[in-house]
């Protein structure tokens, strides 16, 4: 009997262990899914805020407790990319969309406007972008500016020349590199620069 009880208990414990492992696995897996869902879903919520911004011209928070607001719209029709760019590039902003690095020129304006996003969510497409590809930026006033990719570089995260101002109208897109790394912390960044095509006005 004792032996039976012992093996029964052992079996029960084994089952509990298995279930706990299952739960832990589901929790981790769910966490990963959550990150992707949030990144995708947020863009839809941002759409409403952006539409409002476009109408009254002022920054509108996408949800009441948000600490950021959409600033511009980035599109690359060739890649099916249509993203709303947020103010600031903190981790909290980047969870929802590409973030404009505060202090650099505003998207669409003259100067160097730098936008960063996660390489495994919003900016995955950057790995496929080639020289000469066209992209456009729409600002809060509804003005659309077209850009052409003129530079692709890999650089260290400490290389702040990427943020440097310029007299030209430049758009700089930054994401982590390499694209397929599993670990989230790495020292390298993938930098795509695009120069504005003159003469492209509002739609």
């Amino acid at each position, binding site marked *: 009997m004792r032996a039976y009880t012992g093996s029964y208990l052992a079996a029960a414990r084994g089952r509990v*262990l298995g279930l706990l*492992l299952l739960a832990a696995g589901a929790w981790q897996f769910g966490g*990963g899914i959550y990150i992707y869902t949030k990144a995708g879903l947020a863009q839809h919520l941002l759409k409403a805020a952006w539409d409002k911004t476009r109408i009254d011209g002022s920054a509108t928070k996408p949800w009441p407790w948000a600490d950021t607001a959409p600033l511009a719209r980035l599109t690359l029709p060739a890649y099916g990319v249509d993203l709303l760019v947020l103010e600031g590039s903190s981790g909290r902003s980047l969870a929802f969309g590409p*973030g404009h690095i505060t202090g650099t020129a505003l998207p669409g304006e003259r100067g160097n406007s730098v936008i960063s996003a996660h390489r495994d969510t919003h900016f995955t497409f950057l790995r496929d972008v080639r020289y000469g590809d066209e992209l456009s930026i729409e600002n809060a006033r509804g003005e659309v500016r077209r850009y052409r990719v003129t530079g692709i570089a890999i650089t260290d*995260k400490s290389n*702040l020349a990427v*943020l440097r101002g*310029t007299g030209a109208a430049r758009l700089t897109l930054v994401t982590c590199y390499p694209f397929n790394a599993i*670990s989230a912390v790495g*020292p390298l960044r993938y930098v795509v620069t695009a120069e504005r095509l003159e003469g492209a006005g509002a739609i």
Partner: protein
Amino acid sequence: MDCSERNRPSRNRLTRIDSLVGVIRGLFVCLVVALGAFTDYVAAAEAKDAGLMFKSRDGEPLRAPTLMTEVDIAVTGIIARVRVRQKFYNPTDAWQEGIYVFPLPEQSAVDHMRMKIGVRIVEGQIKEREAARATYESAKQEGRKAALIEQERPNIFTNNVAHIGPNEEVEVQIEYQQKVQSDQGTFRLRFPMVVGSRYIPGTPGETVATGTGWAPDTNAVPDASRITPPVVDRARGDSNPVTIRVDLNAGAALASVGSPYHKINAVKNGDTGYRVSLADGPVPANKDFELVWTPAVERAAKTVVFTETFAGADYALLMVMPPAAQQAAARHIARDAIFIIDTSGSMEGTSIAQAKQALLMALDRLTPDDAFNIVQFNSVTDVLFNSSVTASAANIAKARDYVKALRATGGTEMAPALTAALNNSDNQRVLRQVIFLTDGAVGNEAQLFELIKARLGDSRLFTVGIGSAPNTYFMSKAAQLGRGTYTYIGKVDEVKEKMTRLFTKLESPVVSNLRVTWPADAEAEMWPRQIPDLYLGEPLFVTAKLRKLAGTVLLEGQIGAETWRAEVSTQLASAESGINVLWARDEIESLSDAMRGSKGEDNKQAITDLALHHHLVSKYTSMVAVDVTKTLPNDALTQTSAMPTNLPEGWNYEAVFGTLPQTATSAREQLLLGLLLLAIATLWLLRRPART
């Protein structure tokens, strides 16, 4: 992380589940880290192949020229003649233009430059800044080698070298003259090696950058891109090796010769001379070199006069050591001490440790009669007490806690802090002394000097330069305008000695109302125009241009309550070359100071004329050397490289520059870990029934 630690299973059965998950997670993390390290390694190796971590448009590697510097210093008594050789080597396949932004002592008078190509030497010519730039650009256009030395600040210069061929070396030799610093019986000579990264306040304009630096030009610092050379993080290794040799002839037997920041060999040479060299060979250009020597007490000269005749005029350099103050100073004068401490990002690392220790020492030195306050600043300014409080035990304790908790981060918005500390006060009853601890890593010196001049009132400003590569121009000029004195602290070990010296100065009577009377027919043009008060141990330095030097110079002043008079016979004078250059440099400083605060450039012509006459590099004149023959092949690839500089020793790269944002989520890691756990759990659960 130590992977083996995480893998060790616990023996406690109750925590078996926890530990099992832990083990799996640990294994997983190790795997991820290993994988991550591997992919990073591969990526880094790829990137490294692309030269300076950049790929050019057509995928060709871009690499930059390298630089080696050799410095030869000859000290004769109280003047130094320095030759700096900058050797640019081009390891690339393209023809390179190297642009190097480098520091020199703020009192240096650059009067010679030559370019050496193989065995050929091309002498540099002094020209007005725009004309020199045009000469350089047209030589570049014509495919001829050229070198151009421009002054950005009294202590920052730019060297442009055009058309360095593949695998070729071009050497640029720069020579300058300077006075040696003297204080409390010791003599010092600094050779700065790197322009520490400056904080650039203001708003960037929309104009094209005027230089190749990392900062955009702003309304507060219109030439920011010319004073912010690219910086390589220490992690990437040091560059720009420097060799220094000093031929020291102090003119008297020495009690000691030393270098506080570098290991040196000093070998006796003749009766009073020494040959000094770096003990361990070349050093990276990442901190100031300083040579310190002390004459044996009884041999120290109290008066030195050097003269020279140049283009029909006489020039003189005069150093006089006033006697030490009488002990009559025992009467304690109440002080109001305002401490300003810089807690910006450039101070992070060893600098903030030095500054905090210095400030704590200063607090200990206050007596209950004194009043004090503390102002700290980075991007914002914070004042400890609303207004100065008495130095009671309770207030000091509060201040000590405040100082100990200080951390260095953020920008260097210096103006609000100076505004808070300098209130234009006019109070004869107390001595208001502002003690300013900073590395001076700012680009808007001119703006700050105006502020100090306008708000000083009856206060005195004492600057304490902190760290391995302080902005000595800012420190000395701010102290001069603040009618105080400056002190440098280069390492923690020096805090006690240097601060004690400073306190002794703060607490001792000054030599005031100093007057120098030259013989009537000398028609002397003297620097400084207004002689500042001298603090304890400081000698009087005077340079002058004279119609004819003869007779006796009379010095008068007030030491505490006593009157001091001295006569210096010009018979004592010894002839020395380059005295005219020292005077001209000083005169340019006077003319520049006189323009401070006015919108126009009233003295531009006077400075230009003076600099051209004495062959001096100034803010309006540059030195240019152009090769006679064209060497650039017609089909050559040309490229411009801003020479990278080191981060000053003890600085923290990320505290100064920040980094690009973190742009990857943990989603992938979590999904993989989740899947792994789910798989193990499923296997585990399926295995159980099979056994019963």
